[in-house]
């Protein structure tokens, strides 16, 4: 065989040397797919409102909306399409969160990580999903047949319903409920029902252990989470997600996180509680791999397992999104106040191109902030060990709940203070941002020193 | 204190129940009468100056020629850094001895292992059941006259020599293939068979 032919047939994979086609293809799909979904959400969410449908019927179909026989059908259809897009968005986002988490974890653990399916192993989650679909669906003979089959759907419902009220952008929310955040808390509690059912119906002692632990954990941590959520609600004066975001500003010193010392505490309480609600380390007792193998998931295989996994990772996104909405200013774009949005929207009919562009920017800001918080959650998972059940309960009831209450009362007083001394708000904002920046600088400096002391160096090119 | 010193103290208290110290080939040991073993052990553990608080090893050796099973105790003292080896001889037909678990808790698992692998009965042991082998195993493997039962619950414990086995499997496979595709009836050979040597690989590769 000639040398050229031999080289052509040589399929030895070279680690780190992806053919350009693969890299470009991965980038294309990796950026394109979420962008397409974002775009779909972008377009559909303002469009699938009754007045828009009426305008569509009136202008495009030339019929009178009041008497149009298929109006309800069109309403239903538009909602169905939006729901479909949102669930897909949830699933895709969950898959990409898996990729990000595995990537970060592999770097933290000094491993190469995923690197086969797509550049940087980007499509590994697709391969995993396909693999899970093709597995044998085992249902233990002793398990409760109906509940065993039903529990993944409780969990999936609880997860999917949250996307209805997540504010992706200035007008990009499927339903701007006036009880937005309250609805979200209520709906995420469905997940605990699913977990309990899964643990119970598996009819396996280890699964039962996992289910009980998880129920205790999630229900307990609803309390500090709920109290911590009240603080931005108090500061904004409304439960609606968009209102809470609009009450903040685009710059860090205008975020709720920094404009009120008590809300810093509230953010920490909220963050810890959300980790516990999402069964994330250090609170991953229900699925403590080294103790219970997979806890409540032990008996699940194939697609049902995939559903649980999808929800667990998608929940990271939801948690991060809620944290961003409440404390980090949501989609607020710097230099773009509400006047700019109103001006670009114009009056009547469809808004102009500038408005759409600004929506995209606000969506990008939201996504970036959510990714930042998501990275924080992933980071915490791969650093900290797991706490024990009784320590978890003690932490919740003896530490988080009192802290949350104190923060709540402090916020009440703060709101009163703000009425008297309105300048306290920006002053605190700047002060806390400054303090955070100093702490971050110390942290980075100390990290660099630690790395140098270990004889290593930071290598950011190692992707 | 040396082993000789410990032995002298033992002899002083127990007299003839403790045998003489054997030659050091390489470890010297002393035979103890089996009825007094627990007291000897307790004495060695608690006596100030001796304080052999660590039961390093307790095991058994099977001597079918002498018709005894020996239980061997290796004792060590952390405080004084000395040690001694004691042996007890048991009748091979019915090996029974009192447990020393009351003196050192370590003996619990050691004696369970001896029971499992040698069949020695320890009176007074709180939980004498097999340790390494399944509960319904028959026989005591470390005895010299142990015969393997050939299997356990249908899982065979004998395997023929792999070379022989694989050759036999090849024969079986060939016979089955021959049965499925009966060889073609012999036909007259062609007139001028081409040079049919072993297949020549194509020149390309």
């Amino acid at each position: 065989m000639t040398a050229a032919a031999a080289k052509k047939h040589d399929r030895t994979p070279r680690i780190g040397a992806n053919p350009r086609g693969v890299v470009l293809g991965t980038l294309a799909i990796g950026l394109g797919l979420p962008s397409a979904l974002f775009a779909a959400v972008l377009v559909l969410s303002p469009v699938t409102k009754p007045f828009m449908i009426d305008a569509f019927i009136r202008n495009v179909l030339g019929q009178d909306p009041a008497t149009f026989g298929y109006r309800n059908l069109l309403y239903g259809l538009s909602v169905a399409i939006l729901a479909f897009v949102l669930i897909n968005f949830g699933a895709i986002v969950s898959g990409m969160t898996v990729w990000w988490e595995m990537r970060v974890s592999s770097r933290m653990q000094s491993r190469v990580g995923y690197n086969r399916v797509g550049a940087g192993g980007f499509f590994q989650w697709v391969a995993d999903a396909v693999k899970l679909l093709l597995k044998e669906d085992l249902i233990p003979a002793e398990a409760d047949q109906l509940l065993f089959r039903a529990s993944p759907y409780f969990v999936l419902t609880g997860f999917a319903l949250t996307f209805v009220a997540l504010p992706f952008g200035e007008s990009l929310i499927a339903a701007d409920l006036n009880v937005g955040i309250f609805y979200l808390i209520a709906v995420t509690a469905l997940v605990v029902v699913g977990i309990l059912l899964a643990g119970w119906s598996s009819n396996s002692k280890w699964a039962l252990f996992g289910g009980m632990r998880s129920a205790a954990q999630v229900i307990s941590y609803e309390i500090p989470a709920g109290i911590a959520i009240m603080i931005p609600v108090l500061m904004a004066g409304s439960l609606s997600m968009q209102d809470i975001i609009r009450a903040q500003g685009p710059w860090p010193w205008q975020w709720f996180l920094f404009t009120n010392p008590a809300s810093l505490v509230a953010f920490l309480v909220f963050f810890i509680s959300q980790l516990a609600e999402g069964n994330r380390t250090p609170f991953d007792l229900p699925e403590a791999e080294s103790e219970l193998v997979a806890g409540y998931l032990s008996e699940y295989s194939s697609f049902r397992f995939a559903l649980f996994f999808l929800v667990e990772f998608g929940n990271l996104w939801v948690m991060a999104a809620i944290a961003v909405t409440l404390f980090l200013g949501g989609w607020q774009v710097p230099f773009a106040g509400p006047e700019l949005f109103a001006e670009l929207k114009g009056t009547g009919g469809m808004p102009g191109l500038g408005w759409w562009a600004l929506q995209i920017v606000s969506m990008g800001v939201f996504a970036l902030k959510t990714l930042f918080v998501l990275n924080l959650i992933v980071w915490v998972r791969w650093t900290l060990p797991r706490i024990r059940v009784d320590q978890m309960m003690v932490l919740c009831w003896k530490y988080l709940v009192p802290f949350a209450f104190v923060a709540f009362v402090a916020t009440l007083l703060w709101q009163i203070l703000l009425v008297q001394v309105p300048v306290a708000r920006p002053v605190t904002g700047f002060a806390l941002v400054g303090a955070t920046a100093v702490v971050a600088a110390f942290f980075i400096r100390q990290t660099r020193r630690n790395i140098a002391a270990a004889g290593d160096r930071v290598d950011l090119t190692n992707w | 204190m040396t082993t000789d010193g410990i032995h002298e103290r033992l002899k002083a208290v127990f007299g003839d129940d403790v045998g003489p110290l054997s030659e050091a080939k390489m470890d010297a040991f002393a035979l103890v009468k089996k009825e007094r073993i627990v007291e000897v052990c307790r004495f060695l553990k608690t006596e100030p100056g001796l304080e052999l608080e660590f039961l390093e090893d307790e095991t058994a050796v099977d001597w079918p020629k002498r018709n005894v099973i020996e239980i061997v105790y290796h004792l060590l003292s952390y405080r004084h850094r000395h040690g001694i080896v004691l042996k007890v001889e048991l009748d091979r037909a019915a090996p029974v001895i009192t447990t020393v678990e009351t003196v050192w808790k370590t003996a619990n698992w050691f004696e369970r292992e001896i029971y499992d692998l040698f069949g020695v009965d320890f009176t007074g042991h709180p939980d004498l059941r097999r340790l390494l082998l399944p509960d319904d195993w028959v026989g005591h493997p470390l005895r010299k006259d142990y015969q393997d039962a050939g299997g356990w619950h249908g899982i065979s414990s004998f395997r023929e020599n792999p070379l022989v086995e694989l050759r036999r499997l090849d024969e079986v496979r060939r016979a089955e293939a021959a049965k499925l595709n009966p060889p073609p009836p012999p036909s007259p050979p062609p007139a001028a068979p081409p040079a049919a040597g072993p297949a020549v690989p194509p020149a390309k590769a």
Partner: protein
Amino acid sequence: MEKLILRRVGMDHPDSEEMILNFGPQHPSTHGVINFIVETDGEVLKKAVPDVGYLHRSIEKIGEGVAYPGFMPYTDRVDYVAAMFANEGYALAIERLLKIDAPPRAHWLRAISGELVRIASHLVSVGTMAMDIGAFTPMLHGIRERETINDLIEELCGARLTYNYHRIGGVAFDAPNGWRDRVLKFLDHFDAFLVEFDRLISFNEIYIRRLANVAVIPGALAIDYGLVGPNLRGSGVDWDLRRDLPYGPWALPEFREKVKWSVPVGTGFMGTPGDCYDRYYIRCLEMKESSRIARQALESLPEGEVMAKVPRKIKPEAGEALGRVESARGELAYYVVCDGTEKAYRLRARTGSFTAMGIIEDISPGLMVADLVALIASLDVVAPEIDR
């Protein structure tokens, strides 16, 4: 077939109401195939009874069937996580019977390879312990370091796990060219790594909370139950065979003069003496000491042969001997009875993990399930040592 072990957990009659669980034998956190029958009352254990024997390979019986030199590879399998010590103990026992002594260079190489393997074994131990407690990252960092050690030992003797390196009368191979410098370079890096490792996990608040004051084993109880090695030292007993009953290299005056080190003892670093944290942290400290020992030994490595003159057929005269070494898991002793033939008459391996299992049943009442995991991990039991 009724399992007799169930009687220990009160489950021998049909209408008992305890919740009995099987913890193993396949389980991510039992170190090897070990089964525990666990009787719980909610999260709190009433009793955890170990059920061993899944890895019983009758190595002691095999020892009666192979010649003395031929048994060396089997000793690797007695403890495959720290196989050097298993080799060394057996070689020592037979050398005592033959009344021969290995040459100095062999002794030095025994010490160096032993300490490197001790580091490797402790890395696995503390890494898997951290993983059992839920921190996944430290284990992989430990494994990364262990890879380098495996590579170094592979250069030395050709194998990464079951070394078969020691021989009766010395060691099999001499150190290759440049090996000494490579090991010293690794040790420099390793000392810095230990600091980073400590910062990552040893002083982590959650980790300390999980391990401190959990499953306290007082010193007297540890001796009574026959715990050895880091378990014993973690309970406060200052005993190390290398210093107190020296053998092989540790008994040579030149070695003792060139190699200075200390024995870490548990003093309740973060809680009570004898808790899980002590046993864990002792291993971290021991890794540091091993690095020290290896470095000093490498710098003072004498020239010479690596194997003594040993008869072709090894037939010691009738007698018996006990050869003990301080393995990563504590005292590993081989009791060899020979009757003048080429094969041993009785060959017994007394291992540290065996007696460590014996204590679990009596310490477990009152622990939580998560603490049982911590206890098993802190005792550093490996299944091959228990079952042989």
